[in-house]
């Protein structure tokens, strides 16, 4: 039963190693046996899924704006622009100035050359704090700080795309993406907002972004494998990817009154925080599956599983335990996109619902085919380290 305050998805902006935009992603992902785009040399022994070639001018018209951002912010601003375009909101002053925004963000890219020079000098200096002052005061580009700052992805979206109703940035890896979608949906359902831009981006091709995982040994090393097949392989199982995902969420009535195409309805969004050190993860995943109120019958699941051993095996066990579920671990083809992972999962779920077709298996050895039309698709993000979330995406 549809209601005027349903949350519907009217715009999707995607970028990954597979390309950009919902159509390109659908076409690629619908091909059986699609091979991932991998970069195994640049960060060896780590493999990453690199960004595709992007003409930034298409979404960020001013060169001056492009220069004020590092790649992560540019990527997010670009993906946000794709979503706004797709929803017919870009360039519409009235809709942009009243549009709310929740961005899931980490941090941006530090200057690797400056950092490397400081580290090299630290080998022969004992006054390292003075060294820091000396180098940072003279070698940092003054505006680099802004190009790194977490909330400046949202800030740049305001500047470039004129989205100014409100601007909030959530931090906290996959959980930030979950909370962003959950909060945005709750605001629409309660009438606190009519249309919201929500999403995130992750640019993994920077040593600090790899370090953020590897300080706890989360990265997979050695030959690449599909996301479900990394248990026991060298390293921690996670292969990261650069990408971004933004959604335009809209109150159903708002979307229909302006005659927009609706991809899908966003059903329940649920989230949790298992105390994993106390062994709560399995129970938490089971509880979330229950809370999401899965429909009867077979169900396609777009899993954001990262490959990280413990979290991925817990998620796999929970999904395998329900014979009705056919899971697709999309990180096999895109890599793990951290804050963008959950919005990406929801976007892929919405595409399947909209196209009335399931994705073929991404990993023939572990995934099972789904026949028929997916009316409802589950999207998941079980954090590689902490926080869990799921959503159900339904036929419009």
């Amino acid at each position, binding site marked *: 039963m549809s209601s005027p305050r349903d949350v519907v998805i009217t715009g999707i902006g995607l970028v990954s190693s597979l390309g950009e935009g919902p159509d390109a992603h659908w076409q690629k992902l619908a091909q059986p046996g699609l091979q991932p785009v991998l970069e195994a040399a640049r960060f060896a022994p*780590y493999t990453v899924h690199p960004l595709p070639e992007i003409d930034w001018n298409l979404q960020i018209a001013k060169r001056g704006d492009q220069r004020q951002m590092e790649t992560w912010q540019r990527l997010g601003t670009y993906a946000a622009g794709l979503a706004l375009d797709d929803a017919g909101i870009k360039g519409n002053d009235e809709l942009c100035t009243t549009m709310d925004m929740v961005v899931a*963000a980490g941090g941006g890219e530090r200057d*690797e050359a400056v950092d490397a020079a400081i580290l090299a000098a630290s080998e022969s200096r004992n006054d*390292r704090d003075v060294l820091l*002052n000396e180098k940072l005061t003279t070698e940092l580009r003054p505006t680099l700080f802004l190009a790194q*700052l977490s909330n400046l992805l949202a800030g740049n979206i305001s500047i470039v795309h004129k989205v*100014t109703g409100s601007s*909030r940035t959530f931090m*906290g890896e996959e959980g930030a993406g979950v909370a962003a979608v959950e909060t945005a949906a709750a605001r629409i359902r309660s009438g606190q907002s009519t249309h919201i831009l929500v999403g995130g981006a992750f640019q993994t091709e920077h*040593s600090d972004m790899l370090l953020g995982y590897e300080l706890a040994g989360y990265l997979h090393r050695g030959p690449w494998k599909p996301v479900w097949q990394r248990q026991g392989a060298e390293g921690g199982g996670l292969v990261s990817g650069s990408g971004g995902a933004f959604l335009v969420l809209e109150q159903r009535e708002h979307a229909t009154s302006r005659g927009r195409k609706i991809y899908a309805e966003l059903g329940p969004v649920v989230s949790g925080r298992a105390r994993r050190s106390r062994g709560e993860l399995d129970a938490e995943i089971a509880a979330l599956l229950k809370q999401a109120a899965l429909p009867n019958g077979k169900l396609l699941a777009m899993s954001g599983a990262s490959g990280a051993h413990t979290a991925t095996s817990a998620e796999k066990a929970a999904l395998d335990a329900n014979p009705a579920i056919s899971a697709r671990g999309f990180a096999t083809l895109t890599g793990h996109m951290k804050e963008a992972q959950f919005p990406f999962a929801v976007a892929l779920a919405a595409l399947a619902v909209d196209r009335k077709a399931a994705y073929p298996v991404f990993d023939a050895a572990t995934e099972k085919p789904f026949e028929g039309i997916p009316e409802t698709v589950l999207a998941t993000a079980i954090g590689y380290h902490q926080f869990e979330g799921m959503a159900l995406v339904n036929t419009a």
Partner: protein
Amino acid sequence: MANLRDHMGRPIVAVTGIGVVTSLGVGKADNWAALTSGKSGIHPITRFPVDHLNTRISGMVDFLDSSSKGASLLTYELAETAANEAVAESGLDSSDFGGPLFLASPPVELDWHDRFSLYNSDGQGAGAERLLRVARGLKETDTFATTQFGAIADRLADRFGTRGLPITLSTACASGATAIQLGVEAIRRGECDRALSIGADGSATAEALIRFSLLSALSTHNDIPEKASKPFSKDRDGFVLAEGSGALVLESLEAALARGASVLGILRGCGEKADDFHRTRSKPDGSPAIAAVRAALADAGLSKDEIDYVNAHGTSTPENDKMEHLSLSTVFGERFGSMPVSSNKSMIGHTLSAAGAVEAAFSLMTMRESVIPPTINYDNPDPAIVLDVVPNKKRNAEVGTVLSNSFGFGGQNTCLVMAREPV
């Protein structure tokens, strides 16, 4: 019987616990005594050497166990300390809070001391490649935790027994106000009866100072530190980087009354508006800040004539104070010249991610104590900014309603309206 719903039929949101830490001390009592006697917490930097730095003063919190242990641990301790005070005052269970957590905290990065120590623990290779190799051999995960954006909230959630996935947020210098707004909204939506909103910032590292310095945002009046932060003065030359934390226990008025809690104030309204003009500067006509103030008033169901006092963002930068004056005078009109407007930052500096929460705490105390903290260092008024800044000395006054402003880089504008009584 008190009215339990506001002018829009939503649950009224009460404050039942307040906690605060600034460079002036730990807890409401010490802070309030210092704040109302016009005492400054700004002092010379001792945490790291100041060679080569143009700014050598700050409002750092130097008296906690974690003060020299890096931004992540200090931010946690600041948050924990303020939240502990707030939850204790509310009378709720401090290990089983039972509502969601909203944490405003600074973006995290691997601390330079950790970077140096990782790098120099191994002599092979160079740069990032060496760091990554050392990282994958690490046997502990404490360093890892300092690089995870959700880690501080995760730890706080364990400590206080908050419910569900904790939200960590950043709206730059408006973050603390946004944390409160998220709590208010969750209660109004009926998702919970109570929420814990915290703003905490212990990120005053050398690199943070240098970054703001390179943007010409900081005061360089190093000689008399306590005089450096001088909001609305003619010779103001930047803000003073500072640390601190503020925490509020928010509760639906209905739930608070039902359990017999003391109601310390009411969170009447929240307003926000993003600015699309520039990464660090406001639109010259002040329209986004004006819209945020008006949105907060509308959300509170109050007219502009019903605000008694403004707790200003008042950073002491040339740009902010000019724009804030423009925005407020546009909203409040003729009445504005006689409205008290003071800046806590004149004494505590700019606590960045914590500022909105710290200043909300002080706004609530202003109403409860019927005392307006002054704007100190107001010796040389800016003739272009005609304001009653409550200069230099506290003022006894009945204050029933407060507007608290928070503005930040990236076009962030968030305003809160608080009231003493539920109405």
